[in-house]
């Protein structure tokens, strides 16, 4: 007897966005991740490697190693991550943090511009994480990067107005970030959209946790958002950004050099970052912001397999 394969009939799709002057495409899927037998997955997940605009304080030695010669020069560091195979560069403006260098908007904008001009891949610019300060610096960065079609974040419920207005005016995309809550996530997308920025210029960050550190919460949110998007909820049908590296490298299993019972740090740290990334790829994330070059290689090997069509 012939077996009838159950296929879900989705009625909508995730917005397709194109970043940078190169127009790297992300999103556009009409089914859940990698279910090519049900719908279209026109674009593969993309990776970005992080670059700090000032020497990072909390990188373990193992993570500093691949960037040792460039770690205090963001332009050189950015060129290096492109060579190492990242699809995008994620520049983190930590120097603006009041507890770091408290750099001015003009200073960080200058660095952002220099980095953008030194690379041939799209740029993601991430603020220092202090909402007020990001609300000040990111509009200036957006102006300096006019025409670069950069992805700028993170925009939160407390600072979205100034950043959204600037991103809209200078032709960028924003990363909307909400604290592990699908209802707040949806509301923030709506608020940003109501300021005139089209939904297909937003990508959202639901705030992920690493493997062993609450990964399942973010997984559920992404899955719910994707099912909403595919059944017609346009306010959640934007690409998803996952800050993999930031979380994975917080895990003690990744950063602890001295734990022989867990095996060599190199193996487990990379595994931690890659496992976190592959999990969120299956949940529906599109943009993977990571830290170690070896992790993106391993992650891309997984994506190569997952992108092979299983249509029949």
């Amino acid at each position, binding site marked *: 007897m012939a077996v009838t394969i159950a296929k879900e*009939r989705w009625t909508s799709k995730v917005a397709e966005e194109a970043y940078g002057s190169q127009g790297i495409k992300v999103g556009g899927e009409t089914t859940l991740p990698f279910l090519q037998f049900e719908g279209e997955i026109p674009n593969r997940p993309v990776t970005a490697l992080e670059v700090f605009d000032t020497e990072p304080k909390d990188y373990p030695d193992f993570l500093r190693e691949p960037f040792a010669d460039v770690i205090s020069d963001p332009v050189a560091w950015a060129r290096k991550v492109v060579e190492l195979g990242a699809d995008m560069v994620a520049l983190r403006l930590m120097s603006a943090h009041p507890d770091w260098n408290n750099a001015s908007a003009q200073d960080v904008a200058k660095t952002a511009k220099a980095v953008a001009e030194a690379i041939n891949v799209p740029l993601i610019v991430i603020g220092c994480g202090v909402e007020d300060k990001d609300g000040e610096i990111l509009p200036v960065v957006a102006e300096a990067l006019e025409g670069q079609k950069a992805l700028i974040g993170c925009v939160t419920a407390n600072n979205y107005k100034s950043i959204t207005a600037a991103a809209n005016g200078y032709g960028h995309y924003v990363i909307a970030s909400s604290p592990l809550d*699908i*209802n*707040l996530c*949806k*509301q923030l997308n*709506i*608020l940003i959209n109501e300021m005139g920025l089209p939904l297909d210029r937003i990508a959202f960050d639901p705030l992920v946790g690493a493997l062993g550190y609450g990964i399942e919460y973010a997984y559920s949110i992404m899955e*719910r*958002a994707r099912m*909403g998007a595919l*059944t*017609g*909820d346009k*306010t*959640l049908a934007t690409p998803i950004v996952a800050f993999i590296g930031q979380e994975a490298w917080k895990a003690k299993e990744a950063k602890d050099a001295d734990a022989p019972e867990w095996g060599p740090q190199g193996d487990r740290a990379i595994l931690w970052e890659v496992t976190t990334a592959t999990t969120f790829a299956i949940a529906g994330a599109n943009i993977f912001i990571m830290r170690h070059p070896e992790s993106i290689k391993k992650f891309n090997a997984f994506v190569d397999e997952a992108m092979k069509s299983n249509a029949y």
Partner: protein
Amino acid sequence: MFEIIGERINGLFYDIRDAIANKDPKPIRDWAVKQAEAGAFWLDINTGPVAKKSEQAEIMAWLVKTAQEAVDLPCCIDTTNWDAIEEGLKVHKGKALINSTTAEQAKMDALFPMAANYNAAIVGLAMNEKGVPKSAEDRTALAMELVANADAYGISPVDLYIDPLVLPVNVAQEHGPECLEALRQVKLLSNPAPKTTVGLSNISQKAPNRPLINKTFLAMAMVCGLDSAVMDACDEDLVDTAATATIILNQSIYCDSYLKIFRQK
């Protein structure tokens, strides 16, 4: 996604009747826009009882064209006159909804092929030549006839809107629970399930407190599987009730702006 079928472009209303008589497109356009802004998914188009049978087809075509010039919404072509349905379909842009056939074989054999031919959706009333059945079981049996016949003509259940038929609560109270139970059963008839619809304001005909009866019934029917209703899209409380029901039923994801988002297409 709950679908509001805006009831206002109907020759029963004096302004629409006069607009038809004077060939004045303005009231049609105005109501099309008003209902679209209020959250309508379909625009019901009904020539009304006074239009002469010989003129209904022409009037229907004019109403559909006029409404669709004003807004980008599909129409629910609401008439028992088959020629008028076909003239409406001929000029319609996008996927139309035919309103309606019954489970009478002759009607199904005329209207299902027409729906298939114009790639339209169609409302199927759970009644036949014997009238509206009393029990949920009999309503469901007629719904099954509609599903089976639609399928035979190549119409997917997702394009078939079963109407279990709502009767006024002040004269046919015993039909209330039967109609609600029929909604539940209809959603189990096929996979994918047929869609469901009702003429909402029938429930409150000639009763006081009509808005209250309408919205109470709407919320109850949505729990039972109601997917759409011919209703007053400009009754804000009623639309808010539908929006809130979709949230409580977990059919759309909650956010603080959900009432506003529900009205956007």
